[in-house]
Each structure stands twice: as structure tokens, then as C-alpha cells.
């Protein structure tokens, strides 16, 4: 419906000059003169005081001038002081008489005891490397720069995830550092098939982004698609995985999330084993999972660690809660304004008696309460913790009880709104829960204008829309549509772990078989064991 406008917009975009905001790639090389190089770097970085330039004299009788450059805070200062500066100044290899050209080789091969050392000539590369937390060594008379990997600085330690809480699962959550996050997943899947690719996205922020997948299980087409979409991104800054999500989704005009994200390494590991692809973005503890399907948003990692019957019941409950959070108030509005005959007579009398003194029609009442609740929630999220309790008191007392006593809203409406609110928290994925929050208002208005018919049409429209979505080419509504019986058993329901032979068909490639046959645990022939024990026992007695 909206693609009419979409196409026009694209046409306008094409006329704009490409990359007009971005600095063009320079090809200035490093100079022989140390002072010129230092001046250049100072000029490029605007003489920022956090760039430390330590001038040293190295070599035979300290004849060669050199400089060590790093950014305060970005480097691990202990490494820089102990391993780098000290070795350059005191190492015995350097005190021999050496040619100027050999110094670089000696420093690289014999002096610096660090993992990553390389030489660069391009000025921009050198500055970028400096900004990434590496230490630069410049030597008078040499037109090359040595960079040593000294990234460090303060990091948050591994803590319990706050958004995806589990009762029995692991308590580890991702941190803001990509290296730590990737290592956490590698610790869970030790297979060499766990492949990773890295790239830098964002012209200014130069954010490290890595994709991770299990070679042979993930579909090559989807991996390729993820790679091309990430490479296409050409923006100023990527500050969060949410930025990436918005730039790689299939359909932009939708309210439903077509990518998943999580803070839990075990959830990433589980999804990787199903053939999905993880995208790590440096600077955020949320890792993206693609492709995402609708029912996936109602699953938690714990579904697989508890018994299948209980897990299925909970899953079903979550779907019901989602439906309630979607159409709860709308159903109430439709039933009280249009279809009173549907409600049992005793209940009708109760609701009617309550509503007698209320000055507004049901729809206004519902909108007032829903909007108030959304304001309360929005305020509660961003409020300093110290005054958080004030909000709950104000919310519960003033808006709940006082509004009913003042006769502004009916008690039934308060019940409906609270049930809806609680139900919306039962969806494990926050991104899905907020879409339900928003669509709810559309449903209320549809129900208020055309009753059940309006509500039904709005729902139909939603289903059609959901069916039209795709996530990296995988239809969003699988396994319902297209219907895959085997996939259906594994995603909407969950079979017992020993019966889960296959991976989801549309996501994993040809390698569908997950585990061996006969995984059903069978107790040993118990009677014989007991008999044997008895025999032994008899022997002892005799």
C-alpha cells in the first residue's frame, strides 16, 4: 500500500551525491622526518591532549630519535610502560650498532614482546590504528610506523543479564566488548566449524562488527545475504546493535521486529546450532540473531532445559498472554458498546451498574487508562531508582483507586488494563512486546467504531501483514505459513529433546539432521539388576 510513496523517495535519494558527508580516503604516506610526522598527527587529531607523545632515544649510544604515541585510556597503560617503552629503551639487541633500515626489523622481531606488531605507511591507517587503541612507534629517518596492539582500558566485567532473566540457566551475560562476547560463545561451542568474519562499519565510529555462524549448518545463501547487507551500510555512526538491526531488516514499514537480539551467550549458542547467524556489535551487550521468525519471539532459552510438557504449556501461555495484551481492551470496548448480548446477563448488570456513573463512553475510558498506563511505564523506565517507588505509589493509589472512587473510570476497566499490562510483560522478547503495546491502540479504535467486525478486520489485516513479512528471505510466519509439519513440531511446540531429530528446514541448509537415532533414554533392564544384586547379596550372606 505504501510502496507508492516508497518508490518516489528512493528516486529522490538517488539524485543526491553519494558520500557527501564522509571524508575522502587520503593516500598521504608517512614522511622520513620524525618532526614532520608528529606535526601531521597533531594537526589531524587537533592537538588533542589525550594523545600522549613520548619521545625516546634508542639504539647504539641512544643516537636515534624516536617517539611512542598512544591515546590515554584506550591503551592498557601497564603493557605500554612495561613491555613497550621499557623494552625499546633498554633492550640489548638495540644497543648493537645497526643500520637505520634494520632497526624496524629488530624492533618487530626481537624487541617488543607483544602479540600484534606491524608496520604501516599510509598516514590515515596509522592515525586510525592509534584511535583504535594501538600504540605507534615512529623513528627518525624511517618512513614507516610500527603499531603494537595494546588495546585495553576499563571494561565492564561479565555480569548477570538484566533483560533475559533465567531461573535455571547460566548467569553469564554479554558485555560491551566484542572480544569477550565472542570468547563466551566459543567457550560454549568448541567446534572449529564456528566461523567468524569481522568488518568495520560506520565512517566515523569505525565500529567493529562480527558475524558468526556454524559452517555447514547455516545456509550459505543467508550468510552471504547478511554479509552483503552489512557491507552495504554506509553511515556515519553505529552506536548500538539497534542501528544495525534497522539498517539490515527486510521490510522497513512494519511494526514487528524482523531481527532478534539477546544478552545471553547460551541463547546465541542455541540459535547458532539451529543454523542462525549472530551479529556482534562492539559497544553493546545485545547480539543480533537473524533470521528471526514470529514464533521465535515467544521462546526462551529455558524452554529447552526444562521438561518438554512444561515448556510447551508455558509457550502456549505466552502466546495467549500476547493475544490478551493485543486485544484485551479492544474486546472489552467492543463487547460493552456493540455486543452486550454476548456477555452473560449477570455480568452485564454488574458492568452496566459500574458504568452508570462514568461520564465517558467505554472507548474514551479505555484510551485514558491505557495512555496513563503507558506514561507511567515510560516514566518508570527512565526514572532515577531513588524515586522509583514514588511512581508506583502514585500510579497504584492515585490513578487506580482514586480514579475509580472519583467515578472517572469504572473498576472493570481498571481490571482490564491491569491484566493487559501484566500480559504484555509475559512476552519474553521486549521488541515484540512493545509492538503489541502500540497495535493495541489501533485495535481499541477499530473496536470502538465497528465492534467485533472492526476488530476482526484489523486482526485479519495484521495476519496478512505478518504473512507478507520475511526475515532474510525466510517467511516470518513459518512454520504456520508456509506450513512445515516437522518444523512446526520443533518451533511452535517443542518435542522431547530425544525426538528433536531435525533442524528448522527453512533456516538450516541441507544439513538438517541434528542428532543420532535412538536418543530416547531407556532405563536398564531394572529387574535383572535387582535380581543380580540379590544374587550377590545372597553370596555375601552365605
Amino acid at each position, binding site marked *: 500500500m505504501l510502496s507508492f510513496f516508497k518508490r518516489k523517495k528512493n528516486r529522490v535519494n538517488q539524485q543526491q551525491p553519494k558520500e557527501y558527508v564522509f571524508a575522502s580516503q587520503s593516500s598521504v604516506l608517512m614522511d622520513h622526518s620524525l618532526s614532520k610526522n608528529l606535526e601531521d598527527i597533531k594537526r589531524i587529531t587537533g592537538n588533542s591532549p589525550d594523545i600522549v607523545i613520548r619521545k625516546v632515544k634508542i639504539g647504539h649510544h641512544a643516537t636515534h630519535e624516536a617517539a611512542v604515541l598512544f591515546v590515554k585510556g584506550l591503551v592498557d597503560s601497564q603493557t605500554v610502560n612495561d613491555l613497550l617503552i621499557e623494552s625499546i629503551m633498554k633492550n640489548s639487541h638495540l644497543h648493537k650498532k645497526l643500520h637505520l633500515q634494520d632497526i624496524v626489523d629488530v624492533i618487530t622481531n626481537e624487541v617488543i614482546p607483544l602479540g600484534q606488531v606491524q608496520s604501516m605507511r599510509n598516514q590515515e591507517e596509522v592515525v586510525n590504528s592509534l584511535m583504535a587503541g594501538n600504540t605507534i612507534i615512529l623513528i627518525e629517518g624511517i618512513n614507516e610506523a610500527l603499531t603494537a596492539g595494546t588495546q585495553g582500558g576499563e571494561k565492564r566485567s561479565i555480569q548477570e543479564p538484566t533483560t533475559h532473566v533465567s531461573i535455571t540457566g547460566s548467569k553469564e551475560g554479554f558485555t560491551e566488548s566484542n572480544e569477550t562476547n565472542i570468547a563466551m560463545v566459543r567457550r560454549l561451542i568448541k567446534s572449529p566449524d564456528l566461523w567468524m568474519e569481522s568488518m568495520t562499519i560506520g565512517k566515523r565510529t569505525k565500529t567493529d562488527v562480527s558475524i558468526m555462524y556454524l559452517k555447514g549448518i547455516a545456509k550459505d545463501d543467508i550468510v552471504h545475504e547478511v554479509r552483503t547487507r552489512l557491507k552495504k551500510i554506509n553511515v556515519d555512526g553505529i552506536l548500538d546493535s539497534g542501528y544495525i538491526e534497522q539498517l539490515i531488516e527486510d521490510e522497513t514499514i512494519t511494526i514487528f521486529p524482523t531481527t532478534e537480539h539477546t544478552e545471553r551467550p547460551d541463547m546465541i549458542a542455541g540459535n547458532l546450532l539451529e543454523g542462525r547467524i549472530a551479529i556482534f556489535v562492539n559497544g553493546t551487550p545485545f547480539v543480533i540473531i537473524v533470521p528471526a521468525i514470529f514464533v521465535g519471539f515467544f521462546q526462551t532459552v529455558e524452554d529447552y532445559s526444562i521438561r518438554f510438557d512444561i515448556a510447551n504449556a508455558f509457550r502456549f501461555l505466552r502466546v495467549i498472554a500476547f493475544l490478551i495484551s493485543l486485544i484485551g481492551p479492544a474486546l472489552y470496548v467492543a463487547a460493552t458498546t456493540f455486543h452486550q448480548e454476548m456477555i452473560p446477563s449477570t455480568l452485564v448488570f454488574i458492568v452496566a451498574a459500574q458504568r452508570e456513573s462514568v461520564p465517558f463512553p467505554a472507548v474514551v475510558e479505555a484510551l485514558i487508562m491505557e495512555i496513563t498506563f503507558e506514561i507511567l511505564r515510560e516514566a518508570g523506565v527512565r526514572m532515577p531508582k531513588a524515586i522509583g517507588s514514588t511512581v508506583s505509589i502514585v500510579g497504584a493509589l492515585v490513578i487506580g483507586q482514586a480514579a475509580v472512587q472519583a467515578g472517572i473510570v469504572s473498576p472493570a476497566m481498571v481490571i482490564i488494563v491491569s491484566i493487559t499490562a501484566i500480559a504484555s510483560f509475559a512476552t519474553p522478547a521486549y521488541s515484540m512486546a512493545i509492538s503489541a503495546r502500540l497495535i493495541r491502540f489501533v485495535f481499541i479504535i477499530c473496536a470502538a467504531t465497528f465492534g467485533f467486525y472492526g476488530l476482526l*478486520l484489523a486482526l485479519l489485516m495484521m495476519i*496478512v501483514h505478518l*504473512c507478507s513479512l520475511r526475515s532474510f528471505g525466510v*517467511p516470518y510466519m513459518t512454520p504456520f*505459513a508456509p506450513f512445515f509439519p516437522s518444523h512446526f513440531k520443533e518451533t511452535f511446540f517443542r518435542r522431547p529433546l530425544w525426538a528433536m531429530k531435525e533442524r528448522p528446514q527453512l533456516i538450516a541448509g541441507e544439513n538438517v539432521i541434528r542428532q543420532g537415532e535412538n536418543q530416547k533414554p531407556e532405563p536398564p533392564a531394572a529387574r535383572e539388576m535387582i535380581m543380580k544384586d540379590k544374587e550377590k547379596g545372597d553370596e555375601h550372606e552365605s
Partner: protein
Amino acid sequence: MEKAKISAYQLFTLLLLFELGSALVYTLANGAKQDAWMAVLMAMVGGFCLFFIHYRLYCYYPNLPPMEYMQMLLGPVLGKIIAFLFILYFMYVAATILRGFGEMLVISAYPATPIFFINALFILVIIYTVYKGIEVLSRTSEVLFFVVSLLAVSIFLLIILSGNINMDNLKPVFEEGVSPIIKTVFTDTLYFPFGQMIIFTMILPYVNERKKVKRTGLLAIGMSGFVLALITAMNISVLGIDRTTRSPFPFLTTIQMIELAGFLERLDVYFILLVTLTAFVKLSVFFYVTVLSVSHLFHVKHPSHLAYPLGMVVLFLSMAVASNWTEYNQEWFKVEYVYIDPLFQVILPIFLLIVAFFKNRKKAV
């Protein structure tokens, strides 16, 4: 042709919901009295024969939609004229389905709402669906198939548990012999709902599993015939033949009769849900095929662009087909079943099949 593929299972759900759509609403095979359910089953057999005609044509031209092979078979001029007539027919039936649906809602639940708004809202959702294309439509039908099956099973259970069924209402069997049943089949039930599957000739080329088309089609028609016969029999056994024939929507009346456990009563919403969902699929298919045929005949590159203008045409046509409910019904019985439906659903396909048979035989020789 839109570059799309649907699976055999999707064809099954589309065809099943299509046959049920709007046939759930009305009294089927009125003329056969208490043997109506038998008439429905017999019409189903007739439906099989019609399906075979369409299937043979499909076998001759598995990649071509009818709008194109008509021109190959009958020459460009006559072919285009017949194709245009088919488009008018599709559009007319789409409009009557929309009107019938609107009338049903106005009579059963929304007496104070103007029918125009009900129709306009419904066609808006359908325009959106058709705009998205056949793949989205068939996926939607898969989801709706779940919902409708759940609803149907629960409503059958409720009717049985409510104890309203009185099998004596179905007796005597063959009160006036077999002839009224056969007469009803050929004047009424064969054309609605079974004959309307002519529309699927436009959709068959999209199916990616060619070998399964025949089995799927027969299965879907058989299942829908069985369900419709069951509903007809249920209506008669609950309401008695007298009330069934007098009631405009006997299934609604049957559902209204349910009273269970003191609070399961007035379940009209069940009926509205079932009818809306199935009518949605039926009308979407009809409208999609209309749009597709127009784009084929007039060489429009993007069929989806036609969804808005043609949607408006169908909406206004639905208001113009009849001035009221009685006139609408009379039109069905006096014009549609007598002249229009037999021509487009039976005579023209047979004619096309004969021509195709001779043309292809010549080629083979």
C-alpha cells in the same frame, strides 16, 4: 505472470476455504428439502467432473493462464472477447459476494450500520491483501485454515453437546424420489459453491508441485463438500426443514440455538468469525483473479497497481447489483443460476476443452 510459487498444501487451504466461504452462510439445496445434504454430496461429485475439465485444460497448458490460452485456442479476436466476458463475470461475482456478506452482517449483527461502510472496510483489507500478491494470500490462507479448523471443530462439538440435534428431522429420506434432488443439483448447488472453482484455473499455473495438483484439488473439493453436507444436515436436524428453508442464514440460527452450561449461549460471534474468515479468502481469491485477468488481457506490467482502482469498481458494483436483499436473492435464482453460471462455469470450459483437444491432436499428428 507474477513471479510467485505456491505449494500444493497452500492450494488445498485456498480451495477449501474458498468453497466454504459464503456457502456456510446460505441455505444450500433448498429444493431437495430434507435430502439437501445428499444434494450437496451429489453436487460435489459434479464438482469433481468440473475440476477434471479444468485440470485437462491445465494439462494442455500448464504454464499459461486461461486468459492467454483462450486467445491461442480461439484466435486473438474471439479469445479476447471471451476473456473480457470472463473478467466481467469474475468482477460481477466478486461484487455479489461482497454484497451478500455485507447484507448478512447488516441483518445479523449491525442493523444500524450502513452497508456501504461494512463493504468498504472489507474491500480495503482485501485490496491490501491482493496488493501483496498471491504468495501472501496463500500464506494467509494457511494461517486462517488453522483458525477456521479450530472454530469449526469447536462449533460442531458445541452443537452436538447442546443436544439440539434431532435426527428425525432428516427423515423421511427420498420422500419424493431422487428427481427433486437431481434437479436441485443441476439448477443450484453445482454452481454455488462448487462451480465457482473456475476461478482457480488462473491460480493453478502458480503451483510448484504439478503432480500433486489433481490429488490436492479433489481432496479439497471432497472435504469442502463433506463439511458443507454436514452443516446442511446439522441445520436441518436442529431446526427442522420448515425453519431451515425460511431462515435466511440457517447456520446462524443453529448456532443461536446453542445453550450450554448456563453461560455458553448467544454465540453469534462464532458465526461471524467463521463467515468473515472464509468469505475473506473467497473474495480475496476472486478479486485477485479479477485483477490478474485484467492485467493479462490489457498487458499491465504490475497487477498490484490495479488493486485500488478495481477495488473501488467492485465496491461500487456491490452497491449497484441489487437494491435490496430480496432483489439480490431473486437475481441469484432467476438470472445467475439459470443463465450466467452454467455458461461460464460449464459450457465455456467444455467448449474450450473440445477446441484444445482437437488443436493438440492436430499438433501431435
